[in-house]
């Protein structure tokens, strides 16, 4: 095509008289010549040429010509004044230009014209560091966007919060829009397909999405075809990953000593041997279950081919991605295939059609670590399972077929066997079809109609083998289950845009009106079959479910979630200085009863480019851009379960009534009382922002301050259980988030050979519950529930005037000393000094589940109200899961063909509720034969109740010997872990601040000359390390954790998360 243009242009030259010749060289930012760049005379597009293989051009131009325009696909066009000398022109990569266009919902806007608060990650950034997911791509990069990967597993849930999140009880995830289509999750978007990510933060930007935009909007634009050029790019990487951190558990000897302390009966001694012989366990190497379960070297692979091209009328982009991961946990595998196709065709000058389709298939093997309820999860089995087997002959325990092993009392399961025996395979497939018709009706009027359809087809296969708890509770035989879920989402949107520049002199107007309807529904079938023959393998069970005893099939047809919306937006700019945006949206939802279905969300924003004012322009040389933005608006939230507004009867209930041992069919109402008065939760946001560009835009800063208030919170309120229900969804209360965000972007050095860029962002957010009532009280406690329905309960509190995420417990105060107690010789137990009746002692012992082991050496907490006893009144706020600030910074450097990029992110001031630590340092629920963390070792000064000489329990009862007890525990520093119902204390609340070198990449690009000989346009190889180091005081696996988020009032709990890994990969990017 260029040749054609060249020929055409050459032909025209001869016709023009009075010419002069100009020459020049076009190079890119790296100093490489740009071959085939188009050079035309400004104002006379018919006169032009293209550069040769050395980037040189020469052109005869009319005498009156003053400037030329140089352009090249993928680069920013440039206008250069004609001078007499040979011209050296450096073209910048187009990426910068792309960054300037920002998606704002149903359209785009130039960044300079933005009135709202929008943060962007460009494709350039995304290219530099290979990421395995879209969420990873934005982690720490955007001010005010907090991304927490809740666990280390390949399919971990990613929690994204834009400016805190206003709702107390509802999902605070932002709205995800991929190519204009709302999706539930961005986890199945192939990262190399992403062109850019824009995050809308304030209501004036999100208001166009109305109802669903209250928690921010993340807009992902995937790559489109570019006219005129076919390019093929290949991205591939592979790497290894390993467990990043291990926790040290007690040694075999310490373990048996602790078990002996719990139980001196024949159950223990029969298995582990007599007390005097326990020394033998000192010589035993521990069975490292942690290593056996999580010690595997994971392997990551990623392959992507992208074909991109098109003609004047048709553009397309086809991308195929295959990624796979072998997790660090045995049996944990992950694979994903994405096929994306995007096509745009011009039917005629007025009409063009966009079509894109995405197919994703994800398979996840392994049940992860959080499987199981309460304290019955995989991780705890791997940590707490006996590190040593009995060294005593087991013949006493073998009675024909059955071996009685006291470790069964632990209710733990061999973690390796359990992982191997718990078969789980999830296959998720989705097909997305999006089409859009653009019709330029007359010059300023554009009509666009979008249609989208998404099919989801998920299947989860489970087989619980004979060593799993579920099987053991059901006759000890395998159980199979197949869950099939099919979902359909469709959406239609129509918009009409009126866009007129110079609508009035120097005034631009952009008007948009639109309408949208969408619907989502799914159907699910659960088939379960039990009592398969022992030893039958998972594949056979799933293939022959009839061989087991079939359980009732449970089918669910969801209530369709339908929405209908109308919206309009007006952008008005005057002389490029004064910008205003008004948005209005009306949303109707099927979540509420007729009469409450519609919500109305207006917003307004204005911006003032001070740098364009005469009093500024040119007056301050170093200041290139100064813009002030102000916005205010509302957005709604209806993200609650369907059907909460009316009473309905379902067909399943927990236990079943078995007349003549046959299950009776039932129709039962739910446990949540319906509420026909439910209405929209509304967030009012106010934002003030500055955009500043200085030193020739080498340094750009964006500063935003905001104050968001959420009204009519949709809150699952507990109601008196005498109603027959547990709770009811209600509109109640008010929360706010206030904060400041700063983003800095510096091009420190920019030369052809060497460049150094840095970006920095920091966000401060303060969350507050402005209005809260529960009955008469202005607070309510919530339970994170990591230990099921057992203690610690009520470990979080929501209080009016305080933030969400306050940990509520006792203030740790070391351990009780011998001075606190006296020994009651008649009862043969310890009684607190000054406790005449023994009632206080019994109450505190009962509260912690210390039983008769309450006395010197017990964990002590502060009696805050000084009433002489410890009870719920002594609980206080002992931690806040909200960070004071979070952020990230990136350094990008390039020297000739080498590039280096380092990305750090941090969080400061948040607390973590280390539930693992509670579990691993107590006698939880009186389960014996569980190991503890190493800090509980006798060698580390644990208080002991056993006389080392005699092996007798001298703490209480028959052999009680207070003097001797005091003597042997003189050096004790660590309380005794006899707590069976451990409370939450400040001992378990830890500082979660961290600074992580998240990624470090070194790349090398082959010089253009070599590359072009290889018929490539670029070739880069790189190595990246992830999670290189993490500076933190946190004692658990990783400080970036939050495992109990439903409802989102108990953030920051670390319990049984899949441990994080450190990985190293090497990869290649090739473009043809």
């Amino acid at each position: 095509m260029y040749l054609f243009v060249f020929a055409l242009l050459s032909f025209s030259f001869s016709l023009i008289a009075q010419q002069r010749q100009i020459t020049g060289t076009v190079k890119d930012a790296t100093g490489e010549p740009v071959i085939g760049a188009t050079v035309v005379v400004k104002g006379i597009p018919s006169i032009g040429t293209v550069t040769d293989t050395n980037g040189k051009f020469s052109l005869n131009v009319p005498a009156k010509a003053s400037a030329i325009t140089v352009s090249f696909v993928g680069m920013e066009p440039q206008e250069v004044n004609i001078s007499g000398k040979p011209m050296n022109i450096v073209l910048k990569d187009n990426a910068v230009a792309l960054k300037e266009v920002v998606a704002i919902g149903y359209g785009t806007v130039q960044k300079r014209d933005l009135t709202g608060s929008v943060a962007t990650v460009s494709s350039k950034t995304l290219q530099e560091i290979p990421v395995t997911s879209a969420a990873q791509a934005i982690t720490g990069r955007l001010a005010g966007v907090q991304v927490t990967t809740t666990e280390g597993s390949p399919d971990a849930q990613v929690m994204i919060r834009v400016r805190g999140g206003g709702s107390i009880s509802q999902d605070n995830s932002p709205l995800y829009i991929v190519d204009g289509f709302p999706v539930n999750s961005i986890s199945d978007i192939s990262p190399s397909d992403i062109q850019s990510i824009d995050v809308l933060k304030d209501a004036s930007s999100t208001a166009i999405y109305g109802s669903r935009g209250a928690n921010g909007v993340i807009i992902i634009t995937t790559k489109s075809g570019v006219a005129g050029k076919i390019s093929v790019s290949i991205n591939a990487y592979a790497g290894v990953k390993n467990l990043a951190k291990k926790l040290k558990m007690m040694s075999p000897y310490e373990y048996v000593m602790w078990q002996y302390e719990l139980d001196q009966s024949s159950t223990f001694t029969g298995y582990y041997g007599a007390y005097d012989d326990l020394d033998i366990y000192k010589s035993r190497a521990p069975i490292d279950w942690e290593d056996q379960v999580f010690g595997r070297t994971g392997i990551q692979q990623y392959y992507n081919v992208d074909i991109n091209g098109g003609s004047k009328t048709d553009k397309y982009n086809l991308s195929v991605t295959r990624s796979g991961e072998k997790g660090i946990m045995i049996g944990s595998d992950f694979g994903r295939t994405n096929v994306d196709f995007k096509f745009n065709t011009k039917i005629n000058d007025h009409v063009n059609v966009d079509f894109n389709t995405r197919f994703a298939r994800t398979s996840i093997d392994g049940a992860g670590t959080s499987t199981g309820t309460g304290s019955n999860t995989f991780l705890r089995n791997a940590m707490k399972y006996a590190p040593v087997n009995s060294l005593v002959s087991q013949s006493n325990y073998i009675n024909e077929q059955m071996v009685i092993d006291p470790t069964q009392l632990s209710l733990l399961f061999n973690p390796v066997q359990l992982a191997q025996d718990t078969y789980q395979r999830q296959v998720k497939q989705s097909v997305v079809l999006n089409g859009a018709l653009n019709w330029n009706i007359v010059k300023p009027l554009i009509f666009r109609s979008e249609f989208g359809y998404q099919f989801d087809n998920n299947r989860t296969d489970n087989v619980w083998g004979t060593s799993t708890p579920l099987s053991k509770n059901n006759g000890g035989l395998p159980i199979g289950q197949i869950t099939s879920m099919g979902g359909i989402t469709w959406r239609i949107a129509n918009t009409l845009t009126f866009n007129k520049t110079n609508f009035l002199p120097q005034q631009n107007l952009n008007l948009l009106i639109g309408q949208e309807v969408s619907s989502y529904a799914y159907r699910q079938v659960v088939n379960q079959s039990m009592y398969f023959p022992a030893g039958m393998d998972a594949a056979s069970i799933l293939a022959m479910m009839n061989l087991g005893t079939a359980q009732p099939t449970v089918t669910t047809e969801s209530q369709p979630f339908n929405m209908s919306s109308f919206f309009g937006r007006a952008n008005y700019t005057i002389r490029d200085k004064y910008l205003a945006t008004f948005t209005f949206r009306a949303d109707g939802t099927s979540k509420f009863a007729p009469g409450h279905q519609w919500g109305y969300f207006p917003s307004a924003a204005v911006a003032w480019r001070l740098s364009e004012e005469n009093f500024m322009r040119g007056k301050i040389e170093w200041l290139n851009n100064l813009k002030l933005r102000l916005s205010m608006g509302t957005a709604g939230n209806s993200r609650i379960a369907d059907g909460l507004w009316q009473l309905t009867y379902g067909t399943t209930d927990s236990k079943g009534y078995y007349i003549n041992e046959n299950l009776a069919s039932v129709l039962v109402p739910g446990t949540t009382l319906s509420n026909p008065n439910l209405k929209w939760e509304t967030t009012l946001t106010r934002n003030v922002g500055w955009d500043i560009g200085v030193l020739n835009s080498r340094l750009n800063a964006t500063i935003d301050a905001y104050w968001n208030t959420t009204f009519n919170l949709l809150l699952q309120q507990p109601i008196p259980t005498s109603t027959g229900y547990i709770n009811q969804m209600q509109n109640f209360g008010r929360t706010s988030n206030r904060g400041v965000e700063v983003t800095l972007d510096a091009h420190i050095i920019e030369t052809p050979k060497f460049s150094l860029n840095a970006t920095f962002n920091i966000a401060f957010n303060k969350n507050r519950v402005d209005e809260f009532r529960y009955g008469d009280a202005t607070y309510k406690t919530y339970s994170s529930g990591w230990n099921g329905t057992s203690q610690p309960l009520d470990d979080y509190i929501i209080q009016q005037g305080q933030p969400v995420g306050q940990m509520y417990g006792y203030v740790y105060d070391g351990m009780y000393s011998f001075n606190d107690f006296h020994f009651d010789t008649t009862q043969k137990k310890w009684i607190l000094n000054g406790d005449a009746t023994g009632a206080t002692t019994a109450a505190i012992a009962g509260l912690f589940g210390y039983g008769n082991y309450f006395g010197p050496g017990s964990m002590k907490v502060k009696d805050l109200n000084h009433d002489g006893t410890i009870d719920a009144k002594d609980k206080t706020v002992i931690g806040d899961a909200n960070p004071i600030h979070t952020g990230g910074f990136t350094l990008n450097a390039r020297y000739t063909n080498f590039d280096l990029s380092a990305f750090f992110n941090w969080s400061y001031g948040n607390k973590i509720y280390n539930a693992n630590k509670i579990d691993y340092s107590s006698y939880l629920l009186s389960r014996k034969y569980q190991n503890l963390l190493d800090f509980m070792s006798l060698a580390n000064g644990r208080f002991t109740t056993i006389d080392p000489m005699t092996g007798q329990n001298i703490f209480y009862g028959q052999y009680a010997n207070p003097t001797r007890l005091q003597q042997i525990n003189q050096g004790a520093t660590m309380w005794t872990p006899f707590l069976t119902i451990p409370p939450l204390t400040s001992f378990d609340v830890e500082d979660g601040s961290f600074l992580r070198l998240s990624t470090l990449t070194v790349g090398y690009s082959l010089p253009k000359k070599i590359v072009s000989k290889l018929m490539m346009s670029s070739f880069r190889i790189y190595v990246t390390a992830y999670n290189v180091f993490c500076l933190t005081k946190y004692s658990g696996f990783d400080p970036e954790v939050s495992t109990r988020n439903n409802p989102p009032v108990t953030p920051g709990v670390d319990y049984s998360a899949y441990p994080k890994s450190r990985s190293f990969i090497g990869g290649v990017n090739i473009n043809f």
Partner: protein
Amino acid sequence: MKQAIKHLMQKQLMWLINIKHLLSKMEKNECESFLQREFHTSLNKKNQYYMKKTAILFSIFVMISLTGCTNFLTTQSLSTYTPDVVFSNPTYAKDAVMGIYDLLCTDYTYSSRLPLSYTTNSDIEFAGADEGSYNQNNNRGTSNYFASPDNADISKVWQTLYQIIERSNLCIQNIPTSPATNDPSTKAEMMGYYGEALTLRAIAYFELVRTFGDVPFTTKPAAPDGSNFLLPATDRDTIMDHLISDLQEAEQYVPWVGTGEYSSTERITKGFIKGLVARICLARGGYALRNKPGYPTERGSDWQKYYQIADNECESIITNGTHKLNPSYINIWKTLNQLQVDNTYHETMFEVALGLQHSGEIGYSIGVRFYTNPEYGYGNNANVVNTSAYYFYMFDPKDLRRDVTVALATFGNSSGATQEFLQQNPISYNIAKWDQRWMSAAFLAGNLHAQGKVGYGINWVMMRYADVLLMYAETENELNNGPTPAAIDALKQVRRRAFNSIDWPQEVDAYVNALTNHDSFFNAIVKERALEFGGEGLRKWDLVRWNLLGTKIQEQRDAIAAMFNRTAPYDTLPQTIFYKYLPDGQTIDRSSMNFYQDWGTTPPDPSFSSAAWLSGLSATNQALYLLRINLFSSGLNSAAGVQNRYLYPIPTTVISSSNGLLKNAYGY
């Protein structure tokens, strides 16, 4: 010109018709398919004319969406029904009533807590515990009257009972107004369900008032606007009055067992409703701890009135004859353990139909103690309900019920042996009515491989005909200030079954005939109910309504002490017990044992094994057991000075959500 206008009008009309057509489609919720079709058509046709038409159509959609598509936003799941559908026909209405029954099978109702943890402690049943667990904030503590308002299980029991009430209230509100109830062909069926719902609600309220005292009371479903969320406590007498009249209405609608779909007593039938009226009347007319200053235990007003109602109801059950005594006491239990329902005698008047592998701790938390062993598989935790030597020695040696009720041996031990082992601890006997050796093959197949608790599926019997006979004997004696011939006959019927016919002259006729006045007859009833219903969850409530709970529990403690001290009447009991195994080598032969004779310390012959018994136990063990028996139920007379505090505290969560309307009393 005219023609042009006509043409135009015709065109307009066509459009209007089109729009109307569209609107009707919208109303049928066909927006989706229509829009899809329209969109695809528009894609296929490149012609600009069609484009224009499409554009116009789309703008029409905008208008339509505002008006015609209102149904679009009102959706419903096909997997659920709204109440108007549920109560429109007998099939669904029955399912809704079965949904109430369903809640009887949770761990917090009759699968475990109510019959096992909440009916103890009495003098003959108590939670097995040691000094370490007697006052813990758990179910054993609750059984020992040490419950704390923070106990999570109490709040779940409260919640589940009110869930039963709410489901019942929905049925009770909707069935009478249903078209199926107005239809003469289905009216009887619908009203039967109505009667069952009334009864199920009464069961739940009765459990609430006897467990907690005065509680919130409503007969209307919860109002979503919150107008009836907050209810004060209603006096238990008022509630029971309401229940009695509800049940007397219900018994008119529900037939006797064996009629139509009411083929077994796993459904509520007329006989049970009548029996329940009697049971509630006796509680209403009996003693209760009152929420008054000083928390006195007082008798309900007009007790004779209620005893008369109970008397009439029992008499009508007896006269009707549908329910009879099973001639063999042991077979009642064997049948239940086999997961079968007695459809011959219908002695069990209502059984909660628990499901094997799904629900039921009866047999697991109560019954003969089994250790895990190769013959029967996974062991159980039968020490949730224990009994003692006091109860064992309460039986006449010839009473056939003794060995069916008290288990003096465990099966197996911690090393997995497959034989019985004598239980020497006299306060750690089990209840023998549930025994893995009697259980079904299906249970055994599951339990053999099990490594955890399985649902035992054994139905919980809420009432037996023997209870009706003894209630009748009691009301006759009370109303007439002495036993009537009918009362004497009822008591004799129960005792006749308890003894071999050879013993009848002495143990039935002579024994009962000697009870000539009110007091002696009453005392015999008190004892007979203990002997007949051990482990069946009736004793505590009987002792409460007689105001004998504290007295009898103290009698048990004194008896254990007397046994250890060898004082009368236990001065002739042996210090060493001798026993032999049956030829199967597994079972201890009860007939070989010298329970009542002191044979010294030398076995009669070498085939006997021996063990220390009661006063022969070591001083350390005796002291320990005495400590425990004194700790058991010691919360009954609270540290705060409240006597006879058998009521449980209202859960903290309930109080905190009551907006100050509910408060705990009785020193909690």
